[in-house]
């Protein structure tokens, strides 16, 4: 004891003080440490300088007509969506931003960013602008100096201001204190929104020139029709954030999380198909037929599921599920109408109410809903025993089914109702909106596809394994364009009369199946990294295979796969440009084809291409950074 006290009392030896390295020392040590290193450094600087000069020249070139971008913003982002209906786009964007804010408030309320790091980044951005401007002005190879034109002056001024704010602020909060000084994410988001709004309202764009002795000063800010809605958008984002913070304090419940999750799955489809597309609902038909059918499936199916989820009804549920599955398959078969079997004569389905009507007869949306609902009911009946238990568990299960049925019937009805929005070319979405919607839903849907396929491929059951391996290897061996062509052109030939795959549907289905195969391989890599002890421990505790997969194996496998999954998601996002090949006007095609074919901007495709490159890069980089922070956040348990 005394010895221990003595040791504690003695001051620990101070670490040797390392003298701070001067920038000159750092350069000598890292860039000019040897002859070879010096040559590499000089070469790299020269090549970098030349590349930057070329890039800045590309942007600031006199022939570059940047009006091709600024006047075509709506075309680039929403293609030919009619201007008189534009309020629909603002409503959709506003709701989305509100939900982004709400989600951030609910889930990222604790996230704080390092103030020093933020300021350093602002300063670095300013410094980069200054460097670019100077590189543009000073021609080292020709040893000349360009007097700065107006954009370069703007770059110099803005760069200087940003650098001063960044590095000055960094000095003010104290160097080396970036670990201690943090600001909440909310402050950063709100500050960014405020800065954007101020930028829109206060920065005097317009003409400022001195010709001869006359000084022309025509201040003008951004159009009211642009800056007013954007102000509301930013207010919604910040308001949503505040509401999320408040809601978290009030509820913090699973119900709230469930609502958010449901929104992020179904919400965007709701916005696209029911708000942007504005279907022309036939209300009489809805009250007389659509709604009763939806309620029938919700209540009737719910009653069946309630019965099947009673404890000890596992066998009954499996039999019921199998019977329903057969019935659903029969429905799909009947959909093909009269079946001509060589040598056996014709099978006539017309007596059957769910058979497709003869060619030329309308009104098959009801049949599709019935077929899909029966199929889903069969699948849910099969998993019903997993929800056996107390009354509350069963009621929650049945409630989820009923809610899902109503939502699904509503969406399908909307999708199958003709749109009132007049567009130049279907699908009614185009530009960035099309790219974003397709990328979002393909990523979302290919995830469960990939998970299922990865599990099937590692399953002990040979049939699953063979099917999954065949699917994955086949799809990975075929170009995406082929898959898209197949779904856009050929699948319709095999569909029964009265059913047809829309352009959006074809893109979505084909691309999801394609991306799912890659997701499956990424997740399989994660599955294989799970140690055997995890399986044994789960088994020893008596967990069922489904529980083991859901709670123990998958969470760990997905965590390992995050970098690969995000890489795949980024690739999916960028490769959406391939939908141009089957007729979609995506972001890239609008920039490369629609903009430069306008009379005013003939051949001017570079500005728009540079512009969309920046947008693509920002989103991809954000995903990449997001994955890294997700990894660190989830990595807590695996240290």
């Amino acid at each position, binding site marked *: 004891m005394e010895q221990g006290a003595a040791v504690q009392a003695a001051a620990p030896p101070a670490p040797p003080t390392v003298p701070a390295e001067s920038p000159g020392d750092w350069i000598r040590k890292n860039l000019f440490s040897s002859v070879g290193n010096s040559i590499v450094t000089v070469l790299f600087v020269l090549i970098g300088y030349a590349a930057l000069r070329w890039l800045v020249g590309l942007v600031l070139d006199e022939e570059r007509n940047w009006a091709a971008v600024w006047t075509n913003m709506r075309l680039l982002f929403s293609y030919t969506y009619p201007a008189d209906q534009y309020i629909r786009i603002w409503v959709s964007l506003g709701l989305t931003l509100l939900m982004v804010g709400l989600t951030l408030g609910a889930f990222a309320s604790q996230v704080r960013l390092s103030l020093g790091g933020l300021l350093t980044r602002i300063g670095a951005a300013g410094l980069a602008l200054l460097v670019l401007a100077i590189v543009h002005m000073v021609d080292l190879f020709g040893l000349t100096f360009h007097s700065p034109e107006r954009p370069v002056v703007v770059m110099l001024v803005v760069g200087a201001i940003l650098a001063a704010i960044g590095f000055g602020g960094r000095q003010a909060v104290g160097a080396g204190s970036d670990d201690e000084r943090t600001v909440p994410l909310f402050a950063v988001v709100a500050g960014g929104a405020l800065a954007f709004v101020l930028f829109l309202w206060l920065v005097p764009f317009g003409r400022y020139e001195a010709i001869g002795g006359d000084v022309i000063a025509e201040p003008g800010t951004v159009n009211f029709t642009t800056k007013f809605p954007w102000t509301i958008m930013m207010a919604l984002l910040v308001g949503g954030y505040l509401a999320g913070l408040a809601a978290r304090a009030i509820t913090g419940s699973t119900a709230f999380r469930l609502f958010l999750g449901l929104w992020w799955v179904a919400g965007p489809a709701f916005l696209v198909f029911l708000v942007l597309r504005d279907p022309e609902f036939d209300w009489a038909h809805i009250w007389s037929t659509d709604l009763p059918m939806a309620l029938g499936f919700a209540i009737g199916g719910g009653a069946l599921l309630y019965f099947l989820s009673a404890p000890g009804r596992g066998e009954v549920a499996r039999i019921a599920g199998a019977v329903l599955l057969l019935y659903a398959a029969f429905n799909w078969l009947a959909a093909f109408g009269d079946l001509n079997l060589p040598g056996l004569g014709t099978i006539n389905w017309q007596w059957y109410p769910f058979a497709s009507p003869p060619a030329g007869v309308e009104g098959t949306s009801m049949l599709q809903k019935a077929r899909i609902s029966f199929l889903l009911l069969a699948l849910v009946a099969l998993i019903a025993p997993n929800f056996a*238990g*107390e009354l509350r568990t069963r009621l929650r299960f049945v409630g989820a089914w009923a809610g899902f049925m109503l939502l699904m019937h509503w969406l399908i009805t909307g999708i199958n109702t003709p749109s009132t929005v007049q567009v130049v070319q279907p699908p009614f979405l185009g530009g960035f909106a099309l790219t974003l919607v397709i990328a979002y839903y393909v990523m979302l849907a290919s995830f469960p596809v990939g998970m299922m396929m990865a599990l099937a491929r590692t399953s002990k059951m040979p049939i699953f394994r063979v099917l999954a391996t065949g699917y994955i290897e086949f799809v990975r061996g075929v170009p995406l364009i082929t898959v898209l062509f197949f779904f856009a052109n050929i699948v319709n030939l095999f569909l029964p009369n009265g059913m047809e795959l829309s352009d959006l549907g074809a893109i979505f289905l084909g691309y999801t199946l394609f991306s799912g195969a890659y997701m499956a391989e990424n997740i399989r890599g994660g599955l294989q990294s799970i140690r055997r*002890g*995890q399986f*044994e*421990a789960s*088994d*020893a*505790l*008596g*967990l*069922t295979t489904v*529980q083991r997969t859901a*709670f*123990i194996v998958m*969470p*760990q496998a997905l*965590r390992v796969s995050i970098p690969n999954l995000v890489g795949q998601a980024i690739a999916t996002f960028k490769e959406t440009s391939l939908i141009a090949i089957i007729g979609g006007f995506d972001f890239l095609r609008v920039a490369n084809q629609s903009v430069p074919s306008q009379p005013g901007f003939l051949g001017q495709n570079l500005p728009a291409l540079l512009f969309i490159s920046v947008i693509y890069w920002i989103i991809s980089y954000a995903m990449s950074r997001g994955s890294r922070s997700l990894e660190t956040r*989830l990595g*807590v*348990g*695996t*240290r």
Partner: protein
Amino acid sequence: MSQDASMSIADAGMSAELAARDDVIVCDGVKKWFGDFQALRGVDVTVKDREVMVVLGPSGSGKSTLIRCINRLEAHQEGRIIVDGIELTNDLRNIDKIRSEVGMVFQQFNLFPHLTVLDNITLAPIWVRKKARSEAEKRAMELLERVGIPEQAEKYPGQLSGGQQQRVAIARSLAMEPKIMLFDEPTSALDPEMISEVLDVMKDLAREGMTMVCVTHEMGFAREVADRIVFMESGDIVEVGTPEHFFTNPTEDRTKLFLSQIL
């Protein structure tokens, strides 16, 4: 009475009081092959209610295989294993039932690294026993109290020492309120200074009357706690006896050799 011959080996070393208790685990001629290698060569052993049985033997003698067969992490190929009156067959329902009655503690702990200590403990009670979360958490805190680390409840396994992890693993098994606990070399992966904290928990358990089968190399523990000691070699049970008999007066040569090597 053809079973008499085997019963005499299986029941060896039992006091009259112990012999009078109910059988909890009965192994009858259990054989197990890994490919061509025979890991168990017809093991006969009976574990009684509230008995603590320690299984000793050199590595590769089939000790771990035997207790892994008891909750069917490995499937035996011949013979019968009856746990708590239920025979282990390929019927999945029996296996799930037995696994929820039998707790197991592994050499490598096998905690779930992505879940907190509390979630590790409450997962199975909530999903297998269908307990309410609040009830499961209350019980989990009691168990953590019992193994001496209630303050670690919100941490992740990776943040704990080996000894603490193993104690969490024991608490996780106990949360299922098992009738039997199997320990597969629970202290072999631990640093020496952490072994006693795990053994203390196991001794408490034994004192409270848990039926336990322990594969271990801790002779002190075996001597202090075991009702009977089983010595295995090459997939066979060589000798069964009370600790006193085993450590002071072993009959078999191989047992003597083993003891001389490790003591």
